[in-house]
């Protein structure tokens, strides 16, 4: 019979070893990915440009409609919620400042990241996972082709480029959503609204949002690829890994967001 302490520390140790292995594997994947993205092109082994372009289309271009629609709605919602309080103070014009700052600093990047995590993070995990299950990853290795270079690097490049780009679109459309509601329903004069937005919005608001978006893109790619490479069995595991890739990447996006928000709050 094992004592309670033995059972407790045994369970704790197993858990800790498991997470340490996860951490080790993740850092190895990050290391390899950045080696093949940054270092090896300098040594004359270029990245796969055509595959990267096709990933740009899949993860970025095809996300434009859904990102735009959601950003537009959120702009409207934000303006209405702000008006609900500001109206009582007679400060309705500040709707413009609130919408402008919250969209560019916060909601633009995070909404985009959550949509892309659901669309592309899951797709990465499913694609790499089913390739792993069908021995296609083994086949790549046996042909002397590094699977990280072949599969992950084009996705990472696409995400690093397209998440900031989609965020710019989300910012623009979100601002327009707030503007649209304010000039129609709230009766704010368009030129006043634009002037107020311009005076309260600073370059750094947009810039910090884009830095966040870049980091979210890296996080989503790594999480999706990691979950995909972890698949050992068959279809069922591909499904469960895809699910966890979405859950974990949304979680990571929020954690990174917290980190950057705190950082930029004190930096600026």
């Amino acid at each position, binding site marked *: 019979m094992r004592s309670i302490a033995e059972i407790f520390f045994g369970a704790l140790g197993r858990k800790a070893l498991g997470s340490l292995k996860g951490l080790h594997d993740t850092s190895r994947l990050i290391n390899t990915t950045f080696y093949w993205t940054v270092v090896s092109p300098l040594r004359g082994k270029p990245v796969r440009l055509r595959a990267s372009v096709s990933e740009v289309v899949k993860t970025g271009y095809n996300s434009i409609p859904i990102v735009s629609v959601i950003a537009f709605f959120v702009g409207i919602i934000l303006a209405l919620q702000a008006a609900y309080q500001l109206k009582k103070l007679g400060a309705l014009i500040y709707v413009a400042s609130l919408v402008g700052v919250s969209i560019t600093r916060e909601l633009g990047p995070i909404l985009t990241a959550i949509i892309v995590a659901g669309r592309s993070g899951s797709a990465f995990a499913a694609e790499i996972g089913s*390739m792993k299950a*069908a*021995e*296609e990853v*083994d*086949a*790549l*290795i*046996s*042909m*002397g*082709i*590094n699977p990280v270079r072949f599969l992950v690097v084009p996705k990472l490049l696409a995400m690093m480029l397209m998440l900031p780009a989609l965020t710019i679109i989300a910012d623009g459309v979100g601002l327009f959503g707030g503007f649209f509601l304010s000039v129609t329903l709230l009766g704010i004069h368009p030129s006043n609204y634009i002037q107020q937005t311009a005076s309260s919005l600073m370059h750094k608001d947009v810039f910090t949002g884009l830095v966040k978006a870049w980091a979210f893109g890296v996080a989503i790619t790594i999480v999706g690829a990691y979950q995909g490479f972890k698949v050992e069995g068959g279809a069922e595991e591909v499904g469960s890994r895809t699910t966890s890739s979405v859950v974990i990447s949304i979680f990571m996006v929020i954690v990174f967001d917290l980190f950057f928000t705190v950082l930029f709050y004190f930096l600026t």
Partner: protein
Amino acid sequence: MTEMEDAIKVNNLVTHYGDRVILKSISFAVPRGQTTVILGGSGCGKSTLLKHLIGLLRPTSGQILINNGNIAAMNEGELDEIRKKMGVLFQGAALLNSMTLADNVALPLREHTKLEDSTIQIMVRMKLDLVGLSGFEHFFPSQLSGGMKKRAGLARAMALDPEFLFFDEPSAGLDPVTAAGLDKLILKLRDVFKMTIVVVTHELPSVFMIADYVIMLDLGDVVFAGTLDELRISEHPRVRMFLERRPETEVYSPEDYFRFIAGD
């Protein structure tokens, strides 16, 4: 046989899967320019052995010498150089489903050579013709039958004109006629290109058709290594059981069985 040069030598190879021992210190040699069949029942460790030979898995201990270089001690860069001399046909062919057959076959050429695309196209057509798939360049793997996928996988494995060809259960899941066709293709490759071929299988008809040299594994040990004729006359009980398709003898006594199902 002794005058033949060994292309692959395995010395005291030990491997584990988790805590379970899969291969218990096995040693054997694969002669150059011949077809060697690694034979054995399910779960004897033959697929694991193949993954070690192509450098997908690292052994717990022991040496795997390919052209006298120990791949068990190589880093990934050195391994990739060796891998360019190897072609592997996986059990499910493992073609990349997102690419056409032509792109699949062209992939190793595009990655490892600086050939013009027009040259690559010609080589792809040659390889596909070799396996009897000319005219299927623009098909996707999902549009092909199992036997055609395997032949396409073989064309890809042949793309860089390798010294070594490895087959994992080539006839698994194929009807006898298609399987025999694949066996004939293996023979042709050995005779025409003088390749060193290693086939992992448990299909006896195929063994007798293609093998020059046979290695039989059982429960993680080599129980037989020799030519096909030596295999036919071997007196080893496991070899006889395998060749005569006799089932495992009853392992439980009725009392043991009762104890087993009662769960203690």
